[in-house]
Structure formats: structure tokens, C-alpha cells
């Protein structure tokens, strides 16, 4: 059983180095996980290995795969290995399955050069082995994110590929699904396969074990045993990265055992909401007091956002009522998961901000102050929302919201698209920017984030079993 080795990998675009990795080795029994922020070049490395880089990028280097030494610059030379020798588990499994084809066929066509009957049998076996024995005749749109992930795994590996490349597999998965995913990937290693995983999720990296390499600005900063890199990082950047995980946050505003007896801002009684035949929640009572931070958590699709909307009175519940304290009038705000969608897309950011300043009679210097506090470059505001990065735009959204001096804020997965470091600065900016008596509702599927921020937890688990602590 030979290892996979990459030598002198350099990816450039218009003279700029995007990847520069002299050596990378993936051995049997030793999976490799590459972690880093978006833009660090980690995904490009995976695509350079697969031969799927865009033609506008130049790539140089060699890969030693199954005893063959292949130059990376010739993209076509790995095509013949796809499916049989190298396989790739795609980023967004829900998008990677053909929506018009039944799941069984999509897995079966991964069996190359076999009769239709053999292919079908092996596909059924592969689906059964990932715990979806009856899924063969279903269409992808009926699957949950975690199920689609497992189908994609079956389809990618059914061809018998020894090398499995996995690119950001945990996007949008709740912790339980991430654990199941790690289990699945490790099974490939146990079966003698080689595993290369690209992720920004340190928990997934820890669960996979083996070797962890940290990438930043095209280069590998440090690599080594997973436990060593993640527990006792040597490089300063890795240290910051590891410390940015919510469970390790140490901010002055974090607190335990906080309580208040102030009159509640929001008083919801008997809330119920269903989508179609699915009951999201029923007979739910929620109370939010001034200064309180409440986490609404639970797996995806369970109705967290809907509940948050109901508490803000922008979503009408099927039953029950939500009473707002008088002081909330016109002072309820929301932060969105995709900040780009919460700005008028076709006008420069500052045009929209000026409307807010004018409407709320805010001091224009207050905007400048907020921009400085949130460490935003003032010239960003002359651009359109699509021309600004997600992390920056989320901070602009916070600035915009603070101009209105809110007393109740719903942050709906507001940092789920940001990398760890940006997530920490954004949440810090948000909490510190709020007035002391303002309440914060945080919708998140990340329980560590919920623990770090909130005083009160409201966990939705689907069906009607929700519990508040």
C-alpha cells in the first residue's frame, strides 16, 4: 500500500502565488487534514491534486499516486484515475447530486465498467453501508443535508477509489452530523484508503486525527500530529486560530449565572408554527428580559429562525401571541446569515447608511465612530455590497443596526459563513456595541458559540420536545 505524495505544488494566478506547498504526504493509516481560513489556498491544493483547477490558474509540481509520478500541469492525466483511483467528496452534497436522477442510479453509475446488474447490487450495498438502505429510489431533494452527504460519500467511493479527497464537508451540518461524517471518513481509512480533508472546522480535524497541516497565505505554516497541532500549536497564527474556537473565548463580556428581575421586553405565550405537515414548535412560552442574551439552538431545519422571527413579530405564528414592551417600538433589529442579502444590492453601501442616519437623526460622526470601532476601512462604504467580503459586510450590518440604537437584536446564524477568527471579532463587536439593557437573541446550530455567548438556552430538537434552561 503506497502513499500519496505531492511535490513542489505551486498554483499562481496572474503572477500571484495562491498555493506554494513543497511537500505533502498522505499515508495509509495516517489521514491528512488541511485547516485554514477561506482564501488560504487549501481548496486550490485539493483541486490541483484532482486536476480540476480553472484553466485561468497556472499549476506546477508533481504528484506520486499509486506508484505513478504525474506532472500537475497536465490536468488531463488524472482523468483516467477518477472514480477508480481518486475520488472527491464535494463541498455541498445537496448541490452535488443530480436533482433529476434517483439516488440509486447516481451511486450505481460510479461503478465503472461493470454490468448494470452488478452496478445496481454494489450501489445498494454501498447505500446500506452508509445507513441508507431504502434510499435507492428517492430523489435528492427529499434528503436532509446529512443524508445527502452520506449518499455523496457512497457515490464517490463505490468505484473503489483508494484516494479520497474531501473539500469542506461540514458546511451547514449540525454537530451530530459532523460526528457521523467523521466516522464515515475514518471508515475509509480503516478500509485501507488514503484520506485528504480540507476544512475550516477544527472539531472535524480533531475527530479525524492523523496529521493536521495549517495553511495561510498559500503556505503551510505548521503540520504534525493532530493532537499536538490543535492542543499545543507552535506557530502564533495557529495559536490564534485555535483560541478563536468559541469554547476557548475569554472576553470580559462573557458571564455565568447572570440574572435580572427587570420587566420582560418580550413575552410570548403558547407559540406554535408548522410548515406543511411538519410541526416546528407548539405551545411554547418565551420571555426575554432587558440585557439578556438568549441562544436559540438545535439542528438545521428545526425552526430556530422561524421562532426568532416570531419573537421579533416579523413572522406570524399559527397560534399564541407575542407581546413587546413599549420601549421596543421601532427598536427591534435583525442580523442576517448572508449579510449581502440584507443590503440594497444595487446601490453603494453608504447610500443606504445615509438613509438610516437621516431617518434616526443620528450624529453622522456616530457612523464614523462605529466604522472605526468595528475596524472597517472607511473606503469600503463606497462599494456595493457584493464587492465587500462577508466578514466586513457583517460588521457593516452591525454598524447600521447600532445606528438605530436597538433594544432587541436577533442574530440569525450571523457568523456561520465566517471563518473562526472573523467570527470572534464580529461577535465581540456585536456584543460590545449593544447598550447594556438591550437583549440579544442568537440563532445558531453551533452549541459552542451558544455556550460562549448566551445566558439562557432555548434548544429546539424538532417535534415538540424543546427545553429551556
Amino acid at each position, binding site marked *: 500500500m503506497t502513499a500519496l505524495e505531492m511535490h513542489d505544488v505551486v498554483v499562481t494566478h496572474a503572477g500571484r502565488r495562491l498555493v506554494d506547498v513543497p511537500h505533502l504526504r498522505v499515508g495509509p493509516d495516517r489521514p491528512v487534514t488541511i485547516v485554514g481560513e477561506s482564501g488560504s489556498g487549501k481548496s486550490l491544493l485539493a483541486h490541483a491534486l484532482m486536476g480540476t483547477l480553472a484553466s485561468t490558474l497556472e499549476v506546477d509540481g508533481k504528484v506520486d499516486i499509486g506508484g505513478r509520478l504525474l506532472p500537475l500541469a497536465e490536468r488531463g492525466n488524472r482523468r483516467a484515475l477518477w472514480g477508480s483511483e481518486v475520488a472527491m467528496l464535494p463541498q455541498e452534497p445537496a448541490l452535488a447530486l443530480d436533482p433529476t436522477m434517483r439516488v440509486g442510479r447516481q451511486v450505481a453509475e460510479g461503478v465503472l465498467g461493470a454490468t448494470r446488474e452488478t452496478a445496481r447490487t454494489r450501489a445498494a450495498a454501498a447505500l446500506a453501508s452508509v445507513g441508507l438502505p431504502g434510499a435507492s429510489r428517492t430523489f435528492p431533494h427529499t434528503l436532509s443535508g446529512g443524508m445527502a452527504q452520506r449518499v455523496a460519500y457512497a457515490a464517490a467511493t463505490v468505484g473503489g477509489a483508494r484516494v479520497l479527497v474531501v473539500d469542506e464537508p461540514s458546511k451547514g451540518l449540525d454537530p451530530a452530523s459532523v460526528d457521523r461524517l467523521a466516522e464515515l471518513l475514518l471508515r475509509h481509512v480503516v478500509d485501507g484508503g488514503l484520506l485528504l480533508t480540507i476544512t475550516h472546522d477544527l472539531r472535524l480535524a480533531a475527530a479525524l486525527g492523523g496529521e493536521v497541516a495549517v495553511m495561510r497565505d498559500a503556505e503551510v505554516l505548521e503540520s504534525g500530529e493532530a493532537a499536538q497541532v490543535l492542543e499545543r500549536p507552535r506557530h502564533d497564527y495557529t495559536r490564534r486560530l485555535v483560541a478563536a474556537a468559541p469554547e476557548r473565548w475569554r472576553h470580559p463580556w462573557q458571564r455565568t449565572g447572570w440574572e435580572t428581575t427587570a420587566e420582560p421586553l418580550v413575552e410570548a405565550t403558547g407559540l406554535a408554527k408548522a410548515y406543511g405537515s411538519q410541526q416546528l414548535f407548539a405551545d411554547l412560552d418565551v420571555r426575554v428580559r432587558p440585557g439578556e442574551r438568549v441562544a436559540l439552538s438545535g439542528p438545521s431545519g428545526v425552526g430556530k429562525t422561524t421562532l426568532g422571527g416570531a419573537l421579533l413579530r416579523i413572522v406570524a405564528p399559527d397560534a399564541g401571541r407575542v407581546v413587546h414592551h413599549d420601549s421596543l417600538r421601532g427598536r427591534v433589529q435583525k442580523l442576517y446569515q448572508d449579510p449581502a442579502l440584507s443590503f440594497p444590492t444595487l446601490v453603494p453601501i453608504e447610500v443606504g447608511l445615509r438613509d438610516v442616519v437621516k431617518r434616526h437623526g443620528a450624529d453622522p460622526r456616530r457612523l464614523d465612530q462605529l466604522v472605526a470601532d468595528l475596524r472597517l476601512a472607511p473606503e469600503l462604504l463606497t462599494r456595493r455590497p457584493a464587492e465587500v467580503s462577508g466578514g466586513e459586510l457583517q460588521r457593516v450590518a452591525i454598524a*447600521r443596526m447600532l445606528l438605530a440604537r436597538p433594544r432587541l437584536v436577533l442574530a440569525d446564524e450571523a457568523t456561520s459563513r465566517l471563518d473562526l477568527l472573523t467570527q470572534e471579532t464580529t461577535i465581540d463587536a456585536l456584543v460590545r456595541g449593544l447598550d447594556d439593557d438591550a437583549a440579544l437573541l442568537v440563532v445558531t446550530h453551533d452549541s459552542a458559540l451558544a455556550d460562549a455567548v448566551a445566558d439562557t438556552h432555548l434548544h429546539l430538537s424538532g417535534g415538540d420536545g424543546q427545553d429551556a434552561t
Partner: protein
Amino acid sequence: MSATPTPAVLPDVTVADSRRGGPGRILAIVVLGALAAFALVGPLVLADPGAQDLGRYLEAPSLAEPLGRDEYGRSVLARLAHATRLSLLLGLVCVATALVLGTASGVLAAWRGSWIDAVLRAVSEAFVAIPALLVVLLFSALSESGSLLTLYVGLALVQWVEYFRVVRARAALVLGSPAVEAARLLGLGWVHVVARHLWPAVRPLLLTLASLGMVTSILAMSTLGFVKVGLQPPRAELGLMVTEAFPFHDVAPWLSLAPVAVLFLLTAGFLGLRHKEVTP
């Protein structure tokens, strides 16, 4: 929607979309400008388009008469100028009417929703399945000699539904977006919503629809003239001119070529004006 696929792995998305702007659009504006100038100035300085001179039957083009004369000895250039003016004016009036009606009803339906939306949508469902030519044909049956008024009413009646459907769909999307929800939470009024959200999103669509509408109107009018149920001779109209010239296509090709060329340039010009194909 994929979150943010590594941009470097996804090339040429913008290249493909941007290639239909630029020089083509400038050329279209120049062509249309020239035709509009011809249509506006021509009728003022050129001879009477109805003046017959049978002695100059099918006279070939010359310096004084660049497009020659037709089978009644009428100046082809003068007739062409009048026909172009007619096409452009009728198109303009039809498009303006349909645009105002359709946009207003579309925004109304998206904004107010409920029964207003339901009623307007049901009406538009019926209208959208009816070919414009059919309605105009029916309307032209109303009047003996194919009056301009019936053409106008027919065309405007058929076209408003395009604007309604496109504007309603886009406006519903914009008004239901997080951006507008955020604007409402921020207490920004409807002026902000219209000026910053709705209008910027709808404006390019309207431009595209209006240029397509001009093409539809001009072609419908000339097509009706061509099948002899539209405007009647001796009016100078592009479709009629093509029909009347057809018997002489081998002895006097300039007769047919002139209106065909104007028609082609008009449609090509308006098609070139659009930003992109809109599939409602």
C-alpha cells in the same frame, strides 16, 4: 445557492455575461439615433409622400432621388421617412402605455398581495397566452380601413401583461427579501424601499422589455400591413411598402430593399439596446 465557491475554481462566469454589452450597444444607439433623426427631419424637408408622377414610373435611384421612385412615381425616400416616423411613434406610444399600466399593476400586486394579486394574476394568465398578433388582427377587423387607434389599443392591450408579469415577479422577490425586511425594521419608509431597492432592480428589466416591446409593435404593424389587414394604401407604412414593392423585386429591387433595410435596422437596433435576454 452555493455559499461562496472558491472563486478561482469557477472562471469565466462574468466574462460570458458581460460580452453582450459594450460596443454592440453603442452601435445600436447610433443606428437608432440616425433612424430617429431621419424619421423626424425627413418628413419636414422631403417631398409629399403621396404626390404621384406616373411619368416617373419606377425611376431608378439618382442623386436627387437617392432611393428612386415607386410604381406610382412617388418618392421612395419621402415615403420611407413617413413610414419610419409612423413605426417609431406608434411603437413609442404603445410601449409607454403598456409600460405604465403593467409596471403600476405589477408593483401593486406585489406590494398589496392578497386578492388584488390573485385577480390581477388570473387576468394576466389569460392575457399571456394570447398572441399579440391575434388581438391586433381582431381589433383591425373592427374598422374598415385599419385605423391607427385600433392598432394602438390592440398592441397596448397585449403588451401590458409582459411588464406586469416581470415586474410583479421581481418586485415580489425584492419586497420579500431580507434587505427590505431590514429596511422596515430600521424604520426606513416606502420612499427608501422604492428608490434604493425596487427601482434599481426593476429599471434594467424595463429597459429590456421596452426595447423588445418596440420590436413587437413595429413588427406587428408591418406584418399586418403585409398581410393586407393592417393600415391600408396609400398610407406609407413599412410592411405595406414591402408588399407593394414585391411584384417589382427584379426590375426595381431598391423598392423592396429600402423598407426591408429600415425594418431590419430598427429591430436589430432595439434588440441591441437590451442588456440581456429576459426570460420571464
